[in-house]
């Protein structure tokens, strides 16, 4: 009886996982073609030449960059937005920095496109959501001052280490301009330093592989998840969510996406651009980061009743959002146990591929079939990643795909840590430390701008 129940539960989990992930990734391929971008080698199709006359289709863009002690990266990030996204206003939210972040930001004041919003303690350093809400107040005031139409103002969120592809905002603008029901647009995410180590490659494989496809695929039902980097929302949609649309949730981005959906707004993925971010090279920091993401994701299940009660939420979108919220609970957590049981059975001979009485060639085919069926998700992931990146050979991508099996234990550790933290009501987190990258010295910036700034 226990075996039967185990088989049924395992089958349900496998069917849920395969149907959801393969289903939406296939839809993603179709959806991206509708946007005129093939998901294969997407990065090669996106023009890296900046169009200074980029048409934002009458939309006004503000890009919010929350920054707390980001002196290592903030200068490069601001410069990249100024260079690559013509017409966009940058709002850096200095969340109580005690390094050179404010000075670096101020060195861009002469451009007329960079604003700094400063928060001080005790209000500062209480989470990204609060920082964004605070900055939004400033943006709303600026919108009023400039007499802009709120339905045509777009608020972007970029991490302090984020870099958008050239004219990404143009690709985003096309979606908002074409459909008034779109409240959010999310860019795909790539790990910038993915070639530096295996750990970084795995992170890129996660973001740029099937996840990217699925995000575009979710465009079909209008439920693309909002992420912390490369997220764009319509100001009038944010107004409907409330004065403080970003919550105190550990994943305030996912939470915002749910709020938008509950009010009937659609969220889509833009295939015509993407954002790169630093990966985390330290395993310990990576565990902390992913544990936070899992915890935030898992806690969002508490909003399921709101989704179920929403009059504006179409059934297909409701179904997809529910599936997405259930992934850590119904897929990752149970599979972390089932996988060990299967491996134990394999090791002790409890699970055997029956080959007695078969000819040699039949045994080979049988083992090949067993291998393909057992490793189907990894094989699919490897093929998808190879097709989408121009960096790695097929052999390397497939090797990486097979290494995803031991790498899955990383996910298992994080999801169980997240569960324990939820049970123990531990919801506080410190932000992830950055790697050193485009370091702009404050002294240089002051000289270039030709002005004197106090240091």
């Amino acid at each position, binding site marked *: 009886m226990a075996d039967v129940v185990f088989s049924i539960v395992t089958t349900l989990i496998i069917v849920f996982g395969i149907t959801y992930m393969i289903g939406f990734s296939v839809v993603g391929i179709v959806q991206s073609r509708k946007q005129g971008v093939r998901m294969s080698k997407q990065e090669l199709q996106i023009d890296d030449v900046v169009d200074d006359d980029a048409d934002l289709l009458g939309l006004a863009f503000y890009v919010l960059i929350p920054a707390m002690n980001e002196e290592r990266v903030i200068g490069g990030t601001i410069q990249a937005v100024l260079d690559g996204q013509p017409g966009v206003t940058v709002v850096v939210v200095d969340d109580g920095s005690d390094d050179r972040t404010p000075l670096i930001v101020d060195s861009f004041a002469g451009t007329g496109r960079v604003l700094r919003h400063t928060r001080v303690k005790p209000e500062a350093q209480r989470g990204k959501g609060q920082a964004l809400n605070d900055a939004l107040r400033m943006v709303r005031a600026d919108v009023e001052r400039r007499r802009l139409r709120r339905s045509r103002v777009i608020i972007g969120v970029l991490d302090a280490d984020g870099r958008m592809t050239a004219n990404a905002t143009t690709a985003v603008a096309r979606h908002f301009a074409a459909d008034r029901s779109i409240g959010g647009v999310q860019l795909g995410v790539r790990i910038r330093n993915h070639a530096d180590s295996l750990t970084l490659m795995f992170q890129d494989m996660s973001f740029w592989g099937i996840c990217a496809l699925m995000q575009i695929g979710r465009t079909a039902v209008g439920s693309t998840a909002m992420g912390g980097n490369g997220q764009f929302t319509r100001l009038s949609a944010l107004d409907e969510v409330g004065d403080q649309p970003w919550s105190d949730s550990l994943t305030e981005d996912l939470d915002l996406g749910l709020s938008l959906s509950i009010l009937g707004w659609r969220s889509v993925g833009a295939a015509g651009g993407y954002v790169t971010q630093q990966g985390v090279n330290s395993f310990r920091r990576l565990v902390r980061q992913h544990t936070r993401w899992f915890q935030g994701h898992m806690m969002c299940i508490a909003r399921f009743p709101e989704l179920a009660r929403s009059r504006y939420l179409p059934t297909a979108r409701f*179904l997809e959002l529910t599936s997405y919220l259930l992934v850590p609970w119904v897929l990752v957590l149970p599979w972390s146990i089932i996988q060990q049981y299967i491996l134990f059975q394999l090791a002790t001979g409890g699970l055997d591929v029956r080959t007695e009485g078969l000819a040699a060639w039949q045994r080979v085919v049988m083992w090949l079939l067993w291998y393909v069926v057992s490793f189907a998700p990894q094989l699919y992931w490897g093929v998808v990643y190879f097709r989408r990146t121009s960096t790695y050979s097929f052999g390397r991508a497939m090797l990486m795909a097979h290494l995803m099996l031991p790498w899955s234990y990383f996910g298992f550790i994080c999801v169980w840590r997240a569960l324990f933290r939820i049970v123990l009501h531990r919801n506080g987190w410190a932000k992830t430390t950055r790697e050193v990258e485009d370091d702009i010295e404050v002294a240089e910036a002051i000289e270039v701008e030709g002005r004197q700034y106090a240091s």
Partner: protein
Amino acid sequence: MAGERARRSNRRPPDRALASVASYPFRVVACLLLVGGAGAALTVCSVAYRGFEARLVSLLIGPLTETGHSGTAFRVVGDADDQAIWFTVTPECTSALLIVPLVAFAAWALLQHKFAIGVVLIALAAGFGIVLLLNTARMGLVGLGWHQFGGVSYWTTHSLIGTVISLCTVFVALVIQLRLSVWRDRAVRRTFDDVCEVADG
């Protein structure tokens, strides 16, 4: 202001809310009947159901070969040696096992107000039909393989092709069931023109 207006209009009117509450016991009963029926097919009625499947296989391959059925087994006669062999529809081969994921989804959907009861049941019936058809075809393939090629074909048709067909069957049936389940949308459509007018003043 805009947010409060949107949230107020998102609440169901009292008559709809009442209707939803009143219909919930029906949904629970429908869910229990569905799960109970599926459980019965897998346990108490397993033999009868598998006998039905054996009859279906026999009907399917009847035009192509001499066949028959008895209990939970169907008969095939080999073309080369005229030897008859009986294939039993075992509990591991039955379509009742393959529709467990479909029943699980339908049972959950019945408990959600967003899904119309009738639509959920129709979608389940469609999915069940696909599973029954494809699984019957799979078993028929095993029989026809034996009829044409003898015993050497069994491993290919049953273990190799049969496994692939089973996996594809569940996937296809579930996708179609899901697609049909969301076919009739009960959501209130927003035009967002009013939102833009208010937002833009």
